[in-house]
């Protein structure tokens, strides 16, 4: 690549990244702003932590966060199980009855607008309640079911694509040495694709934690998630407590991702070090 085009690309990259990060940074900066008028910097009293104290004492937000956490953890764990089964089936079994349907059902949620999925889930729960009495009203259970339905699609895609690059000779070798298929899955396949499964868990967790639309449709009284609370607040305009929430979220996520990357790099270095 000659200089002209590489400068062009670099500039685009730079602007693109700035575009992605300026909003985030603006929230972080203004979370320390004393003024309630969020975009006017009150230099007399800023930077301040007063909004941080306000947020951490806000019962509504804390309760909602707790509910979001519960739903996200159950959702991630359940989705990983269902998604791994589906991903394994699609990757390994080239022909089985219903393969086309399963494939369609696991890729449609990835692109389907959430309002459609949310509406349809709610109508299902209402109809089920009429028919068999379960679920009795909507709440954490229905929300979790809703989240699992679309999270599972993401996990399936991740597991499926990981298994596509997996050397089947490893599974055959294990069988050749005497291990039955179920044992091969748990002792050979699963440990090797574990990083993919872990990233699936994290992805499902994040999707559930951030979800607004499906949660709104499938929740009930008293089971508002964090995004639902945030949404009702921000419809009215900016709010400094939301800035604080954003900063905390971003910090936690960044630390986690950076931490995981460093850990993985360290593991790779250790491995290389022992080769003579």
């Amino acid at each position: 690549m000659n200089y002209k085009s590489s400068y062009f690309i670099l500039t685009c990259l730079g602007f693109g990244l700035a575009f992605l990060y300026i909003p985030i940074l603006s929230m972080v900066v203004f979370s320390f702003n004393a003024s309630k008028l969020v975009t006017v910097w009150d230099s007399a009293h800023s930077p301040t932590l007063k909004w941080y104290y306000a947020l951490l004492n806000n019962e509504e937000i804390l309760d909602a966060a707790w509910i979001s956490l519960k739903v996200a953890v159950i959702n991630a764990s359940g989705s990983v199980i269902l998604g791994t089964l589906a991903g394994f089936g699609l990757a390994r079994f080239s022909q089985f009855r219903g393969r086309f349907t399963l494939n369609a059902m696991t890729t449609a949620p990835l692109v389907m607008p959430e309002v459609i999925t949310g509406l349809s889930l709610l109508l299902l729960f209402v109809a089920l309640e009429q028919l068999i009495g379960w679920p009795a009203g909507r709440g954490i259970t229905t929300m979790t079911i809703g989240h699992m339905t679309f999270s599972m699609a993401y996990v399936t895609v991740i597991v499926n694509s990981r298994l596509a690059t997996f050397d089947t000779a490893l599974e055959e070798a294990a069988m050749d040495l005497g291990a039955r298929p179920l044992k091969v899955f748990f002792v050979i396949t699963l440990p090797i694709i574990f990083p993919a499964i872990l990233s699936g868990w994290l992805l499902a967790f994040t999707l559930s934690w951030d979800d607004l639309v499906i949660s709104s449709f499938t929740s009930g009284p008293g089971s508002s998630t964090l995004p639902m609370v945030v949404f009702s607040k921000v419809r009215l305009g900016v709010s400094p407590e939301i800035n604080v929430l954003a900063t905390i979220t971003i910090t936690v996520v960044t630390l986690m991702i950076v931490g995981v990357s460093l850990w993985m790099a360290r593991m790779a270095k250790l491995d290389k070090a022992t080769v003579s």
Partner: protein
Amino acid sequence: MTGRGLVVVLPYMWLLLFFVVPFVIVLKISFSDIDLAIPPYKPLLEWVGKNSLAIKLNFNNYVFLFTDGLYVKAFLNSIKVAFISTVLCLLVGYPMAYGIARAKPKWRNILLLLVILPFWTSLLLRVYAWIGLLKGNGLINIALLSLKIIHEPLTMLYTPFAMYVGIVYSYLPFFILPLYANLEKMDWQLLEAAQDLGCRPWQAFYKITLPLSRNGILAGSMLVFIPAVGEFVIPALLGGPNALMIGRVLWDEFFSNRAWPVASAVAILLLILLVPFMMWYQSVQARESAGER
């Protein structure tokens, strides 16, 4: 091969019950009448006499949607907005994906991380950030005013412009990632061969890189376009009352008007509109993975 069946039966049944069956119910309700009851719709099947069942298929909802100009406008506007947003994502995202794919491996991981990081933080919060940036006394206006580029604050919030910014901002990673995955597999020596045979760099890009990245572009476009058509959050927060998007319409019909049958009809029409695109996406994916093997 009962072993095989056992593996997939659990996810299959789950998705059948919680993904497919709901659509059938939505279809059913889209044919019923609104009712002041809980749930707010009349039942579809009615026992008439002792042994006969009457199905009342009410097409009123669909007729209503097609004749009332509001809904038609909303559908068309949603498609327009989604299409323009997709094109914008392409213009912004392609150079970025290209830059990452051609960067040195050490930089590549860092750049990917930087692109993915915003995705892991809440969409809601990031869209909210734009409120603070775009409003009358927001940061952008403050900056422009103090630099004397403008003399009066620009109205950006609650306009279609804000909506486009919001959608492109939120969906950019969804465009970049599949495109990057596609570009990463490219054999860059093809470009060198082309240049060796007399092609100038931009020509080589146009004739070789672009066609080969077609699948990546299509995949990224579908991942942006299809959900954007039904997008709700961004129009609600940034678009203002005049942003007529079908996702918002559905939400309002459902939550504000309690008109479940109409909302269901909207959902069905939206689904019918999007299914061809979803199938196109599936076939692009199938082609891509077949090409790999």
